[in-house]
């Protein structure tokens, strides 16, 4: 961590977005994480994505649990709503908030401990229900706050900093999310912002449960030889299936793509996702194939990254439940209390 505040001065030539903000306006407090933490790069990527999408900070609710990762919402979007919930309970708090006010953008920030151990059930159910959110797991494979024990996402056979071998099988959150019906599933790496920023932007624009697993090396406890979540290992074994360009309404497609190399997916809100294929055979709209692909490559020790699956026509929890469109805090007494006549009618129907 750092003891001085980040200076307010910014580069005089910084670009501004549609709202007239620079990316500096999307920052929060200065990070108190260890120097070099991958989580700080994810924070920077969230800032960049929100800046690029010209999101009004007060339209965002950022919700987290407990852990190094769950501290990070303090470091971005200082002018947004935030809720730091109990350990592993981010998905429930987020689901509740989303049901109460569907107008906000929901950013769930969690870690491998928070989502794959104590909150595994919570994670599963929020995905299963299709809550409209962007669920980001900052995945470093260790419990950093308690000095580096293996977490549930640590690969079997990988080594701890002291050289101890992990004998448990790993939970692959991406595989689970695919299986449970998440309609936007991606994996990325904190050391590759050119890949991560558009993925976050696309996930925010996606209607439905978006899940991004971001491998985020823990400098203090999991960045050594023998770790499968270190900068070196991920860089060597990164198998990116595609690169993403997010095209919002006002941008014409200016980049020229060679035919057959790009897959354009249009989402509900008109956002177009241009997927530049790196692996020619990979089809991001085929859930089953994605699951098989992941398993095959995981067996080879490869880390598959990119936008792995997207269903542009997904529905969310509100659609399933047919809820009222107005946020609950804006419903007036007459909306909530239909009156004696209506009550009698209902009662009569039940007699």
């Amino acid at each position, binding site marked *: 961590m*750092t003891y*001085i505040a980040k200076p307010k*001065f910014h*580069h005089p030539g910084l670009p501004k977005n549609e709202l007239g903000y620079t990316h500096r306006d999307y920052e929060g407090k200065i990070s108190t994480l260890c120097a070099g933490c991958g989580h700080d*790069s994810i924070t920077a990527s969230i800032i960049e994505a929100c800046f690029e999408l010209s999101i009004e900070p007060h339209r965002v609710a950022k919700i987290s649990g407990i852990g190094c990762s769950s501290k990070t919402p303090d470091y971005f979007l200082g002018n947004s709503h935030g809720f730091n919930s109990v350990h592993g309970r981010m998905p429930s708090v987020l689901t509740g908030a989303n049901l109460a006010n569907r107008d906000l953008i929901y950013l769930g920030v969690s870690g491998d401990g928070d989502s794959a151990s104590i909150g595994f059930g919570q994670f599963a159910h929020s995905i299963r229900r299709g809550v409209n959110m962007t669920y980001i797991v900052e995945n470093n494979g260790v419990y950093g706050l308690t000095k580096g024990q293996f977490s549930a996402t640590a690969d079997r056979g990988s080594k701890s900093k002291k050289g101890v071998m992990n004998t448990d099988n790993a939970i692959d959150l991406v595989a689970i999310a695919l299986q449970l019906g998440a309609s936007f599933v991606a994996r990325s790496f904190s050391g590759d912002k050119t890949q991560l920023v558009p993925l976050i932007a696309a996930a925010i624009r996606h209607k439905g449960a978006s899940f991004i697993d971001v491998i985020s090396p823990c400098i203090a406890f999991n960045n050594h030889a023998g770790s499968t979540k270190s900068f*070196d290992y991920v860089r060597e074994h990164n198998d990116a299936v595609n690169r993403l360009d997010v095209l919002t309404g006002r941008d014409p497609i200016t980049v020229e793509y060679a035919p057959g190399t790009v897959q354009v997916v249009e989402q509900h809100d008109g956002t177009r996702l241009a997927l530049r294929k790196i692996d020619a055979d990979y089809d991001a709209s085929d859930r089953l194939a994605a699951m098989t692909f992941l398993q095959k490559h995981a067996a080879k020790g490869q880390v598959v990254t990119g936008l792995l699956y997207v269903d542009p026509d997904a529905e969310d929890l509100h659609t399933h439940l047919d809820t009222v469109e107005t946020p609950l805090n804006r419903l007036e007494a007459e909306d909530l209390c239909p009156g004696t006549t209506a009550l009698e009618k209902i009662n009569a129907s039940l007699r």
Partner: protein
Amino acid sequence: MKPTDISAPDYFHKVVDCQWACPAHTPVPEYIRLIAEGRYSDAYMINWRSNVFPGILGRTCDRPCEPACRRGRVEDNPVAICRLKRVAADFKDDVRHRMPRPVAKNGKRIALVGGGPASLAVARDLAPLGYHCTVFDSDPKAGGMMRSQIPKFRLPDTVIDEETDYILNLGVEFKGGHRIDSLKKLLAENYDAVFIGSGAPRGRELDIPGRKEATANIHIGIEWLASVSFGHVEKIGKRVIVLGGGNTAMDCCRTARRLGGTDVKVIVRSGFEEMKASPWEKEDAIHEDIPILNYMVPVAFKHVNGKLIGVTFQKVKAEYDAKGRRNLVPSGEPDQTIPCDDVLVAVGQENAFPWIERDCGIEFDKWNMPQVDPKTFVSTNPKVFFGGDAAFGPKNIIWAVAHGHDAALSIHKMISGEDINERPLPEVHVTSQKMGIHEWSYDNDISGDKRYKVPHRDKVIALKDIKTEVELGYDVKLALGEAQRCLNCDVQTIFSAPACIECDACVDICPMDCITFTENGEEEDLRQRLKAPSPRQDQALYVAEGLKTGRVMVKDEDVCLHCGLCAERCPTGAWDMQKYLIDMTHAGSTCQTKARSAA
């Protein structure tokens, strides 16, 4: 791009914009830190070594450092470097015991013509080496134009006396009231070297109708200022017109206000912005109720029976040709005559060397200026050197000092039998400032304060007495606030690629988006791909290669705050903050051979 060679002494020197811009290369951030610590005497001595006249320059310098100051690119105003220099001079203790002591003479004699900043700087460098320096000046006291042309309300005599005495007390012989009328005669006295720092002593004439007839009330600016300075002139008419737009004009008009001028105007050919006077000097004049009228060209002095009654002006406007050059063309408005009692002509200064015989071995060019080598300051006579305004025409004190240092080095080398063209490299020290995990030996917390105004004396009081100094200088508290605005640009960001794990922590934390990791390319292409725009080509890109991914680290030096956050957030110590100090080579620097490697 090729990786940056940070061991080249110039690379980091350029990053310290103020020091690079200063002709004498004063280590500005170093002395500003000392001021912040309250170590005024130490700050003074650093200045004294570089620029010789900290108290004088702290009041009168033309401040080439301030437009260069990085702070001016980060926010509205640069650090008030000049006035902080004055703080060091104002609050220092007695520093006489810190001055070099007179040493036994080495038997070599140097004659210095003119007692101004250039000659005194040469004497300052050479006297401690044992040279017998003799300074000749037609005025009774040392100081040259600093004493004769700068009004006392800007620069009191006490300050000049103190700082010229520091030099004369080194065992320098000063022959006041001794004008050199013939270089030939001087050369015949067999000096080992002659330095000519006689300034640009002649005020330019304005030869328009009526000049001769009304001469009693038309004065040449610098001559008139000198007469005021020496007490020969104590009064001027009520209505005064000052012609000219330079700093001399500003001094003239403000002096006139103090000698009885109640209606003083400055009238300039050019527009307000193009005037040569420094912005702050124009401000000070306007503050003293002196209007500045622009785009008016004097065409005639009006007089009745030899008595000046006014000046007639033609009105002009600026027109720009295809090449962007400005021409002043008549605007077509009728001429205007402005009544006045006196006119001060401050339309420029010229060199004059009537005392240098043309057969002394000194070649003159077609503008009648001596041919002087811009690096060694030697003339075509290997024993005669020039410096200050005498070398290349009117400039400022700080330039004269810089010339003096270089000329002194040449003289020392020439007399030592060395090649004067071989200039030893400066000495460079680079020291890590790391004290602990997040502790630095400099204050890296960036102050957001705006530039502090220097308090001025009340105008009513200031205008009553020509010797009352107008600027009061910063007090200790204001000085501390202003000193904290300095960005410590001499504390350099040093990158070590082998240690870097490319975690992006530095990129993410940098408040100014200075750092980019990307594929290498040509400079023009790289500048397009940086994290923030890079419009200033004159600001270097620091490129380092040797990263695992094969990319390069590119840092745009332009607006780096030197806050050290990159180094604080770096998990592997790939970034370090190291203080860069450069000692310019002066005469007598311990090592004189070229073999020395800097940094």
